[in-house]
């Protein structure tokens, strides 16, 4: 039986939209096994990104608890969450969200500024991460000098540089052509299979979801179906 990395118990999330209360997630229970690769699919507004935000400690549930790696993050303060995120979670966004004023190398080093590593150690670790994503030769390039696929690879390197156990990917291929998307998804598979990263990936793309081990269908605030890919 595989070890559980994250557990959501009775999680609900309600947003206030004007005078109306909108319940995005309703009494959700979920266990995520360490080393799993899960795709979350569902229509817009179904709560996929909210689920990801709760797992990443970017948001707190209205009720219920979120436990990741033995830490109950739903009861942590903002500063505790910041510290926790820096070592436990890697985020990958649809639009890469690299800092345009920094080179690929410096973008990847960014999370390591929060550690006590020396400058040379930070550079060394960023170099390794860029090597894993196949961008050794592009370290001094600025984001504007890279293609979309390369930018996403830099973003992935930034997400793994501090060696987090959980990678949260929000539409990581949503801005890429089919061929480049396939390369990125293969890279995520490598990170999952060879580096043991647990991956939660939100996607609208059924072909992208096929790269995952499991697919969760999120609809009207509940996880309706869970099936093997």
């Amino acid at each position, binding site marked *: 039986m595989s070890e559980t990395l994250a557990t959501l118990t009775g999680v609900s999330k309600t947003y206030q939209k004007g005078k109306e209360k909108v319940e995005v997630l309703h009494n959700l229970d979920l266990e995520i096994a360490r080393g799993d690769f899960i795709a979350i699919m569902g229509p817009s507004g179904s709560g996929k990104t909210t689920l990801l*935000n709760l797992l*990443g400690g*970017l*948001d707190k549930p209205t009720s219920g608890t979120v436990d990741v790696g033995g830490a109950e993050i739903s009861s942590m303060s*903002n*500063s505790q969450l*910041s*510290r*926790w*995120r*820096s*070592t436990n979670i890697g*985020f990958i*966004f649809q*639009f890469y*969200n690299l*800092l*345009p*004023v*920094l080179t690929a190398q*410096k973008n990847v080093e*960014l*999370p390591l*500024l*929060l550690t006590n590593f020396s*400058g040379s150690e930070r550079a060394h670790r960023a170099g390794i991460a860029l090597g894993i994503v196949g961008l050794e030769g592009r370290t001094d390039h600025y984001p504007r000098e890279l293609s979309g696929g390369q930018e996403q690879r830099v973003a992935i390197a*930034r997400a793994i540089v501090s060696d987090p156990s959980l990678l949260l990917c929000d539409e990581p291929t949503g801005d890429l052509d089919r061929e480049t998307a396939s390369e990125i998804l293969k890279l995520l598979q490598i990170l999952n299979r060879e580096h043991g990263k647990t991956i939660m990936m939100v996607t609208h793309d059924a072909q992208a979801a096929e790269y995952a081990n499991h697919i969760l269908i999120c609809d009207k605030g509940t996880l309706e179906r869970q099936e093997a890919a």
Partner: protein
Amino acid sequence: MKYFGFIWKNVWRKKIRTSLTILSVFIAFLLFALLSAIGYAFKSGADVADAERLIVIDKITLINPLPMAYKNRIAATEGVHSVTHSSWFGGYYQDPRVQFPQFPTEPYEYFSMYPELKMPQEQLDGWARNRQGAVIGRELAEQYSLKVGDRIPIQATIWTKADGGRTWEFDIEGIFETEDPRGSTAFLLFQYDYFEEARAFGKGSVGWYILRVSPDADPIQVGNAIDLQFANSPNETETSTEAAFSQSFAKQFGNIALIVTLILGAVFFTLLLVSGNTMSQSVRERISELAVLKTLGFSDRLVLGTVLSESILIMLVGGLLGLGVGWLLVQGAAQAMGAFLPGMFLSSQAILTAIAVMIGAGIVAGIFPALQAMRLSIIDALARA
């Protein structure tokens, strides 16, 4: 320090905008340096004043002379230790633009009154022996390459000679220096006897008296006693401490301190608006980047600190450049205008004040954008991106 590179890169994300903001900071602190030095020059007279020296002038205006006959009566006033006198000559050397103060006075009395002025005794004796002799300060000697033995002509603008001539010639008998680094030596002293004998008008008068009170006497009481003696006479007097005299002399040019404060206040207020606007724009256009930083684990306080540091860094870069160039200009101006406006100096207190203002202005200009960045909701910011 590990964040410095990151902060520096963010400062320069819009090079033209940052350059223009730094330029405005540069101008503000350049003005600060120049105006501080000018303000310092105007108040340096008061700073070097001796508390035991009093100045006696005409009650109505400094321009009105006082009778020479007052000297003995002042000297006889209880509490007065010694007396000398001086007058404004107001001539120029070589060119009407080359002006420095010249004062006719009594050689031994004057140097006894101002012990901080140092000159070899043989030079003082030589001056006292030579009726047309004069002594000059080290600053003047260096500025005009003058030395002992030179004969210099001074063109009078007020005091024509009895023979109708306007050229007064003096033999330089000595060069004096001052022990007080804030004091000026950019002036010339010559013998009152020569002045009295050769001038066409105003004989028997002096510009003002300078007196030293006895160590056990109260300067205020001595001053009141002197003024009381000459009350209801054709030349009533006003006696004040040397510091008060210097301040009132400077105020003839206007309230320099107030003018400087008002100008700098307006400049810095504008500067805050300019740099505050720069920081607001800078934060507004990278909301999603700030959200990403927080996602990566940058705490709210760290985000606040980096934005605030950018604002302070902009102020320090522009401010230190302005202060540096200002310091160079003050050095040059002190050389060029030392005789006309002695004591121009960018004091260490002014430099420390400027650095404190840079940091303070950086905080004020950056605090609201920094708070905005700190309070940023990651979810909302990423959704907007």
